[in-house]
Structures are given as structure tokens and as C-alpha cells.
């Protein structure tokens, strides 16, 4: 067997997903070698084509940097599946696919009569994986959301914040990429099973549930011990200093996580062994934890004069777990990420040469991934409808005239 065959070669996925979670899943699967056919409404394309990061000079309705970052390694076609002809075309496509994936708000696929049952009738072995806010069943299944609101619903906000203060919120996007990885995993597992059993199935993944799964100990503390926990700041159950301290310059910070005696001694070495480190309140791990507030203030007094990134390297070389609080610019410039090839440059006519993030793991010997740039709207219509589905030129013309495809 050839060593260069991609792991998912031969798997075709009809991708009805949009915005974030679903597209993240299918770009992973595309990089693993599956053929991803992204299906967008000709007049209702993926919302992220037009937001939020625009590309100077690009048609802002058709291609954005955000879209670029979430849709590599896919073919793109358009189908208005809300029309009867479009629905027919979508089913025809699903009939030659192994997997259907979608993450529309509840009701979109249901109203179009494109559910698992519908797909199964044209393809009995089909696998369908659906991502949704709260799941495809239950009294609130149709509730509308944006990913960040699920940090609230799932209880994640309630344990996030400064110690002893009311709950804070997670910043940035979290639930959506988390669900993306979850959906990709679900597809792989279902395909793996089908190879052995020949049976397809439906997988229902709720963004809320994958988020709840992220901190099981807090739920067990409640169901077993009756305790409803609150925010813990940057601290851990034990260990001190364990927190985030200000550094020189605006918005520069460093996280230091001392978890045992050798790390404390290493920290003292980098500090230059000042008198206060020999204070009896700081002699062992337990004492330091009891006096963590006083200790934190002393550490902060020192870090304030230091450069965050330089200090991180000095601490790490001495054996102290430390990480500067990076912003996205720091991530992009980081030597470790560069050495590991975390950013893969791709080339496309509108964009030029810009990076995407590769799969966040490495296989050796591989092959590691198949990367090509995100499609323009309907870029592969001809390939998908003519080569894969075998439609004739007049049939395509009729679909175009009926605004079923672009």
C-alpha cells in the first residue's frame, strides 16, 4: 500500500454547515483527506463570508479572512435547498456521499425536509451528524443562540471570574470551536463503525452538552456533595504562587504556577533570593497556600519591573512553570509555534499568501494533511454537479435559471 494515501481518502461529505462549529469540523476532515462538498445557499451563503474580518480589496459579500480561516480543504457549491428542485439536488448529492453534516439553527433543515430520515431514504448507509445549540430534542430545542450565550447556559460562566466575586464571562469564542472538534470526532467514530458494520446512523451533538462536559468535577461536586462552586480566579486548589501578575508595559502579564517545592526554590533563584522568600509564612507548599495573598503581592511587586516574555523564558529555563499572557499577535510571532509549523501558508488569488492554522497535532510519518484554500461561492459547481452527479449542461442551465444554483 502507498504510504502517501490520505487517511480519509474515499470519504465524501455533504457539508450543510455554516459559520463556525460545523465549518471547523469539516476543514479538519478535509485536511485528513475527506472530500468535503460545502453547500451554501446561492443567495444565503455562509454568514462568515461577509464578516467579521474583511479582506482589503475582496468582495466583502463573498470572501472574508474569517471564512478563509475556517474553510480550507473544501470544495464549494451552491444549492437553494428551500426550493423543491434544490431539495431534490441536495438528496441526489447525499445519495453519493458517506456523511451529511449540518449545524443550522433548529428548523432550517427540518423545514426543508432534509432530516436523517429523508437522507436515509436515498442512502440507507448515510451517516448524519448534526450540531445544534441545545440538541435536536427537548422542550428548548428551537431556542436561538450565539455560541457565547452557551457559556451562560452551561454553567461555565458561573465558575469563571475573580475569587469571591460574582460570575464573569468567558471572552472570545469558545463553545463553537469546541463543538467543531467534537463534531469532527463524531464523524470519524461513526465512519469507523460503519466500516465494520456497514451501518450508518444519526449523531446529535449539543453545543451546551459538549461545554458541560468540559468541567465535570464541578457538577460532581454538586451532585455528590451538594456544593455549588463559584469563580476561582487564576488559582488552583493548592499551590502558591499560582496566579497572573503584572509586567512592564501596557497590558502585559505573566502567569506563574508553582506546584511543588523544587519549583518554589527555582523561582527564588530567579528572584535572586531576596530576604522575604525566607519568611516562615512561605516555607512549604501548605504555608504558602495559606498566605497566598501576601505572597502574590510580593511576587507582583517583582514582576512589575520585568518584561513578560523575557521573564517567562528565564523562569522556564530555571524549571518554573510560567507563561506570558499572550495576545493573538504574540501567538503569531511565537518561535515555538513557528518551529512546529503551526501556521501553514496558502495561496489564493484574492488573498495572496496568508497562513491558516493546521490541524493542532502532528502525525509521524503521516501524511499530515492536505491543505488548499477556502472556495469562492459556488467555485466547484461544475465539478460537483457535472463530474460527481453527472448532470448535463442543459440541466445545469435550468437549475441556474431557476436560481437553484449560482
Amino acid at each position, binding site marked *: 500500500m502507498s504510504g502517501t494515501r490520505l487517511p480519509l481518502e474515499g470519504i465524501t461529505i455533504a457539508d450543510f454547515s455554516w459559520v463556525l462549529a460545523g465549518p471547523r469540523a469539516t476543514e479538519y476532515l478535509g485536511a485528513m483527506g475527506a472530500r468535503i462538498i460545502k453547500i451554501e445557499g446561492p443567495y444565503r451563503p455562509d454568514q462568515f463570508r461577509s464578516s467579521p474580518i474583511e479582506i482589503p480589496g475582496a468582495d466583502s459579500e463573498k470572501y472574508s479572512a474569517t471564512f478563509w480561516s475556517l474553510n480550507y480543504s473544501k470544495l464549494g457549491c451552491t444549492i437553494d435547498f428551500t426550493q423543491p428542485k434544490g431539495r431534490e439536488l441536495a438528496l441526489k448529492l447525499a445519495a453519493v456521499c458517506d456523511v451529511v453534516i449540518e449545524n443550522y439553527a433548529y428548523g432550517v433543515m427540518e423545514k426543508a425536509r432534509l432530516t436523517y430520515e429523508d437522507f436515509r431514504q436515498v442512502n440507507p448507509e448515510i451517516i448524519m451528524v448534526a450540531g445544534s445549540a441545545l440538541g435536536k430534542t427537548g422542550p428548548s430545542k428551537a431556542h436561538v443562540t450565539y455560541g457565547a450565550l452557551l457559556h451562560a447556559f452551561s*454553567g461555565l460562566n458561573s465558575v469563571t471570574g475573580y475569587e469571591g466575586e460574582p460570575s464573569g464571562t468567558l*471572552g472570545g469564542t469558545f463553545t463553537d470551536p469546541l463543538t467543531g472538534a467534537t463534531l469532527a470526532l463524531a464523524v470519524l467514530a461513526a465512519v469507523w463503525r460503519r466500516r465494520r458494520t456497514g451501518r450508518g446512523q444519526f449523531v446529535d451533538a449539543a453545543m451546551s*452538552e459538549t461545554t458541560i462536559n468540559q468541567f*465535570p468535577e*464541578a457538577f*460532581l461536586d454538586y*451532585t455528590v456533595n451538594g456544593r455549588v462552586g463559584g469563580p476561582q480566579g*487564576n488559582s488552583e486548589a493548592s499551590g502558591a504562587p499560582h496566579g497572573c501578575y503584572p509586567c512592564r508595559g501596557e497590558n502585559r502579564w505573566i502567569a506563574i504556577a508553582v506546584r511543588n517545592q523544587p519549583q518554589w526554590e527555582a523561582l527564588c533563584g530567579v528572584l535572586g533570593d531576596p530576604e522575604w522568600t525566607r519568611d516562615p509564612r512561605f516555607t512549604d507548599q501548605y504555608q504558602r497556600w495559606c498566605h497566598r495573598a501576601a505572597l502574590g503581592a510580593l511576587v507582583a511587586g517583582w514582576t512589575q519591573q520585568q518584561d513578560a516574555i523575557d521573564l517567562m523564558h528565564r523562569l*522556564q529555563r530555571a524549571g518554573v512553570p510560567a507563561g506570558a499572557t499572550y495576545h493573538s499577535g504574540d501567538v503569531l510571532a511565537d518561535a515555538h509555534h513557528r518551529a512546529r509549523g503551526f501556521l501553514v501558508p496558502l495561496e489564493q488569488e484574492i488573498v495572496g499568501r496568508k497562513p491558516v492554522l493546521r490541524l493542532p497535532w502532528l502525525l509521524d510519518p503521516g501524511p499530515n494533511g492536505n491543505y488548499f484554500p477556502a472556495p469562492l461561492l459556488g467555485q466547484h459547481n461544475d465539478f460537483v454537479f457535472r463530474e460527481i452527479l453527472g448532470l448535463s449542461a442543459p440541466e445545469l442551465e435550468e437549475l441556474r435559471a431557476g436560481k437553484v444554483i449560482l
Partner: protein
Amino acid sequence: MTQAEPEGVLTGLQVMEVADFVAGPYAGRMLAEFGAEVIKIEPPGRGDSARRVGPFAHDAPGLDTSLLFNYLNAGKLGVTLDLSCASGRALLLRLLETADVFLYGGSVQELERLGLGYGHLSRVNPRLIGCYVTPFGLKGPYREYQGGELVASHLSGLAFDTPGGVNDPEKPPLKPGGRQALMIAGLYGCLATFHALFAREAAGQGQEVDVSELEPVTSFQFGGITRQAFAPQTPVRGEAQASPLYRAQDGDVAINPMQEYMWQAMVQVMGNPAWASQPEFTGRANRAANRKALRDLVDQWTQQYPKEEVYQRLQGARVPAFPNNTVADVVASPQVQSRDFFQPMPLPSGERALAPGPRYKFMEGLPGVGRPAPRLGEHTVTLLQARLGLSQQELIQLFQQGVV
């Protein structure tokens, strides 16, 4: 003791786990949920360090009562083996001859000390998949740096934007609650192991899988990273996400009327207050510019009702809103309950604790975890006898010498 279990996606797959604390063990648990046989190898005497991390069942600390450990290791078999001595390593290598996956979770220094790198293991079993979940990965200049939850949340950029809508820039950036970065690394460890299973089938040979605890959580920051790559600018803390929380009678409610039609629907639900038609609150840009004043006005409305009522009324008008739930609210949620998401999980004591179920609902192939996490060394004797054919005398010797 065996019971008929429904066939899982990974039934028949053998996984040997040498993984400590959260990230590696969580990958192992996810494989066990799919029916893989996961054998967890722990150092004799002390075991996995998560055994000493709370919360503990009924607040009674002990090596078998950590709820964190019990969740992460449910469904596995447990063997103790001293891998720092040659005899212990030799036994592990024999177990690996027939295994499909070796799952490692720990530092690269420890990995080198134990001599369990993939180059060595693949000579023992060329079809073996070696999944290594380490703080910074197996390669790269920081490979020997020390990681953990706090370091990964800050170095990934996750903490820079948390809490959302920073009110006090003097207060430090925050890691989110729980151990998000490590759990994400575990999820990706499982995902990458599946990738390697397909790769093994395609290429006919095993794979080394290199999962850094830093990369998966950093990939969540793709938006900011992409912005930097296309139009570099110095990011401002907390700008990625304004806080969507508003005060209700009994807590907070999260609301995001992002589109104009959602805002209009929300104004109606609020009873069309006069202020809503003032120019400073007309249009998305004006509302964003006057965010603080707007928040106070919306708060005045939300404060009159319990969070559940604000949520239901807004969702009734299709405005994205959810209560800011505590863990107790989540467990009591009719939506979550109707899906039987929380499931009884056996503990070593025999008690069954209500715990979060798997991340997804499969029609078939996802049996979940049937057995509790192992007590320290629970299956050492039975497994070494059954798999390696060790005699009673050999086991006694190994025990006396502290190998098992």
C-alpha cells in the same frame, strides 16, 4: 463479573495508558466511552496525581474518592507498574506487543527517562499508534518547558480576553473556570487517535501522534490570529467579546440581540420603552458606542424579573438569551433532563453519582463507561496473569520488589 455490553465503535481496540492528571486520561476516557479496552498503568503506591485532587466524594479525601480522578478514569482497568525500573518497563513492553494504542500523558523529560518514545515502541510493535499528550509537544524549542492549565490558558491567548468586557484593567487576565485547556487537549488527543487509526489503515503502519496541550486551545483563538495575519494591530484586552450579562432578580441573564430585527423584538418584549427610540440607541453602531448607558437601561428592565422569566420571554420573541446558570441550575434544567444528559456513573465505593454524559448522542456504538475508575492497582494481578501468563510465584516476587 462480565456482562453483555452493547458493541461499541472501538470494541476490541486495546489501549495502554501511561497518563497523569487530566489531559491524557481524558483522552483515554473518551476512547473507553466508545468501547475501547483501556488499561491504565499507574506508579505503585501513589498512583495518578489526580487521585489527590478534589473535590472528593462526601468531602472525604482518599486515593479512591477524588471525583475528578473518578470521572476521568471511569471505564478503565487499572494496573500498577513501576516504570522507573527495567523489570516494570519490560512488562509494559510485553503488554504493548498486542496493543493498538499507547496513550502517554506527561512531560517529555519523564518520557525520555522511561524510554517510551515512539521510535523504541514501534520496533516492538510496528502497528502500534503512540499518542503523546505533552505540555508543549514532542518537538520545538519549548518542548521541555513546564505546562499545566494556568500556563496553557495564558499562553494560548484564552486568558487575554477573559473576563469578557473587562471592567477593571487593573485586574489580571483570567483562566476560565475548571481545566478547559487540558480537557480540550484530551478531546483532541482522542480526535488525533482516530485520525491515526484511519492513517494506520491507509498506510499499513502505526503512527506517532504528537499532541501539545498548547496547540488545541490556541487554535480556538483563530479569529484574533487571522486578524493579526491580515491586518496587524495591537489587540485590546476584553475587546473580543463584550459581556452579554444583565442583572435579573435572582442572578444574571445573558442576552445578545446581535441583528437589528432581534433588537426590535427585544424592544417589544420590554414594552417599547421611550428611551429605545432615542437616537443614541438607534442602529447597531450607536448602541455599541453607548454600550454602558444601554446596559443600565436594559438592567432596569431585567431586574424586575427572575432570570428564567427574562429568558423565556425573550426566546418567545426569538431573541438569543439564556439564563446565566449555576451548576445546580444546569442539572435541574428541563432541557438537559429531557435528554438524559446526566447519567449515573459508578464510583469505586459502589455509589452511583450523577455525572455529565458523553459529548454526543449516537444511535449506536457509544456504550459509555460501564465500570468505575479502578482502585489503585485493582486489576494488576488478574491482568498480568491473563495477558502475560505470569505465575503466582512471579507475581509475588514482583510485588515484594515493589515493581507492582
